[in-house]
């Protein structure tokens, strides 16, 4: 079980590469320009079944998106810090 942090936009090839590394029970958190993934309708189709997806709310809102546009749950800074503390493996 790992926490995968995606910082780059969907246009950056590293982002898709990171999503392909995710295994069931991993958590993926989108931060910085990575939050643009949250508006993708087919986002869940990009990862294996059983991978949990979150977007950092502050980064999403800061880019002018409405909360309702996100296809995945939000997480705040506190929640993100909790995830980092909880997961031993971090892929970033």
């Amino acid at each position, binding site marked *: 079980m790992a926490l995968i942090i995606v910082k780059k936009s969907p246009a950056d090839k590293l982002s898709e*590469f990171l999503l392909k*590394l995710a295994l069931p029970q991993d958590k993926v958190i989108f931060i910085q320009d990575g939050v643009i993934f949250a508006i993708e309708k087919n986002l869940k189709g990009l990862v294996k079944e059983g991978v949990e997806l979150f977007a950092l709310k502050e980064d999403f809102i800061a880019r002018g998106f409405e909360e309702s546009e996100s296809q995945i749950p939000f997480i705040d800074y506190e929640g993100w810090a909790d995830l980092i503390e909880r997961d031993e493996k*971090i892929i970033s």
Partner: protein
Amino acid sequence: MKKVLFAVYNSPVGSIWINEAFRSAFGMYGEDLEPVVLFVNEAVLAVRKQCKPEIIGCLPLSITFKYLEKYNTQVYAVKEDLEKYSIKENEIEPHWNLKTIIKEELPEFVHSFDKVVFF
């Protein structure tokens, strides 16, 4: 001992990231951590003997070689990416002591490390 993977995906020419990855990796030995380096995408271009970033004023890759030998640091490259750039086995600089890994095995490989940092 904890294991850390430094995965580089940027080209070796025009960016500092390969040398930065190795600088970080070699620093791990002082912390009793085991570093491994992985080349993916354009970073695999670094393994060719003829790859010389110093031609355009970047740091030479060869500055890492004496430390690779000293610490016996493992270096991997993605097989499909080597094939994409037609890098043949006999063209690979022997100092890398390169191991290859196929894309299909990458998720399990990456999860075998405690921390993974992309450059």
